[in-house]
């Protein structure tokens, strides 16, 4: 009897835990640490149409309870991912979420069209935190109309459900969420990183060679919880929650806020075993909280009907 399984569009997950995109490569490295089939799903690193080297190093900086990254979407490109990475993952019975990035709509469309047809890709995660070169560098994810247009075009070509990964760097996350839902998104992933910076006092220069980078880790958790709480009450599509998750308690908090599953990013760096540890600890935490099935938690902070008290 499973108490942890979660059914989401395209993703039949044995538990709600997946490593977050960009924090788990294409799975090979952590496969040296544990059996990847323990995971509910795997979100692989962002894939772009062409191979990319990314930004110059340093690409990471530590901040209080967080980290900044400016990897710059390094990846082997669509061809590389299809020929080298995804086939290797086939031996694991675990659904893959393919994260797709680009600099214009055509990139996303091309990449999605091809990736979504690969056997073990069960869902596409649209990374809309990238700047749109055609629109003068405005980030896709900050303008509802642009986010919606991108979603629609990608949905047209995708063979699997599409999750749109929202950027938290906006004034009104609800507006964006509703726009992509209307445009056909099957689910949402939230949140991506907050834009941040750290300066080296002695060199008087940013630590990241790119200047700005994405802030992740427990520092941003309250922002993620708030956004998921806002959005989950007004959309009808499920949310994969992320942002600072480190423990089973964090997972419960995200689900109470309205997430249907979660992704763990930065915490993999602190502890490579964090995902299986969380999965192992969940059942006893559910016992302690008097929860039978993990899905009973979803939206529990506003859905009174679920509360056992």
């Amino acid at each position: 009897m499973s108490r942890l399984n979660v059914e989401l569009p395209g993703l039949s997950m044995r538990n709600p835990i997946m490593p977050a995109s960009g924090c788990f490569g294409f799975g090979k490295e952590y496969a040296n640490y544990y059996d990847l089939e323990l995971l509910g799903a795997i979100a692989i690193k962002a894939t772009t149409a062409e191979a990319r080297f990314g930004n110059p190093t340093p690409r990471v900086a530590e901040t209080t309870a967080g980290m900044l990254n400016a990897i710059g979407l390094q990846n082997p490109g669509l061809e590389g991912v299809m020929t080298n990475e995804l086939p290797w993952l086939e031996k694991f019975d675990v659904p893959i979420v393919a994260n797709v990035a680009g600099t214009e709509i055509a990139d996303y469309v091309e990449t999605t069209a091809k990736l979504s047809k690969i056997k073990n890709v069960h869902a596409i995660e649209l990374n809309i935190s990238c700047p749109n070169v055609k629109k003068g560098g405005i980030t896709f994810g900050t303008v509802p109309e642009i986010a919606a247009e991108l979603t629609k075009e990608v949905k047209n070509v995708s063979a699997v459900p599409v999750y749109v990964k929202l950027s938290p760097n906006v004034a009104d996350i609800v507006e964006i969420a509703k726009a992509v839902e209307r445009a056909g998104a099957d689910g949402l992933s939230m949140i991506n990183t907050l834009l941040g910076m750290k300066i080296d006092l002695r060199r008087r220069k940013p630590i990241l060679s790119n200047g700005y980078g994405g802030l992740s880790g427990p520092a941003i958790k309250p922002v993620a919880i708030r956004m998921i709480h806002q959005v989950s009450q007004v959309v009808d599509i499920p949310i994969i929650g992320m942002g600072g998750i480190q423990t089973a308690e964090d997972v419960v908090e995200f689900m109470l806020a309205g997430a249907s599953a979660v992704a763990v990013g930065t915490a993999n760096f602190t502890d490579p075993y964090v995902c299986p540890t969380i999965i192992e600890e969940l059942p006893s935490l559910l016992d302690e909280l008097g929860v039978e099935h993990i899905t009973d938690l979803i939206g529990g902070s506003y859905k009174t009907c679920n509360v056992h008290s």
Partner: protein
Amino acid sequence: MIKKDWLKINHHETIAANIMELKCSGPLVKQMTQPGQFLHLRVDTSDDLLLRRPISICDVDLEEETVTMLYRVEGKGTKRLSSKQIGEKIDVLGPLGNGFPLEATERGETALLVGGGIGVPPLYNLSKQLKKRGVHVIHVLGFQSKENVFYEKEFLELGETYVVTVDGTYGEKGFVTDVIKEKHLSFDTMYTCGPTPMLSALQNAYSDRRLFLSLEERMGCGVGACFACVCHVVGDETGTKYRKVCTDGPVFPVGEVVL
């Protein structure tokens, strides 16, 4: 195979200005066989410091299951590490990466080990292992100043050792490259670890020799998953080829990666 464990601190003391010697033990040490590999330390369990700190293996005693690390007290993490007491435990991930290739030097040949500052530590176990294999070892160790010098005696016990300080307050004055030239040190293989300018100077001077360089880069995961620590590949026209310092390195043969 375990890859992460809590090692117990047996010894922790200052051995030079801001340089601490840390010895700790546990079954994980059994796997630390390759000189030049590193450990990824979680300095404590509070959530304000999320990233692990990469520290080289300086020496191991496989029988006693004890590993020695030398580190410089730099920023927040190493400062906090330095307050750990004997008896406390520390969360260690590793050994990680590819270390120095012992087999690159044959019995009877000469290896020149060149270290700069906090790049010196990994050369110690390397030297021990090379010596055990019948290799003749010479050490050139560069430091800023007299107060920063450490492990001279330990290296001397293994072989010829030259200490160089930038300000000349101890040993020779200048850079490691000066000493190598002035003393006409000859060698079959050179192994080196230290600041990038030093590595560049050695690479430029000895690009046609058997030379292995250990690189440093800011890391996220330390295991190859995050792409934080990449470097370009020499001669790659596409600009998209890379090596990861954490898993492909930290040691690379000369000419493989762009410093």
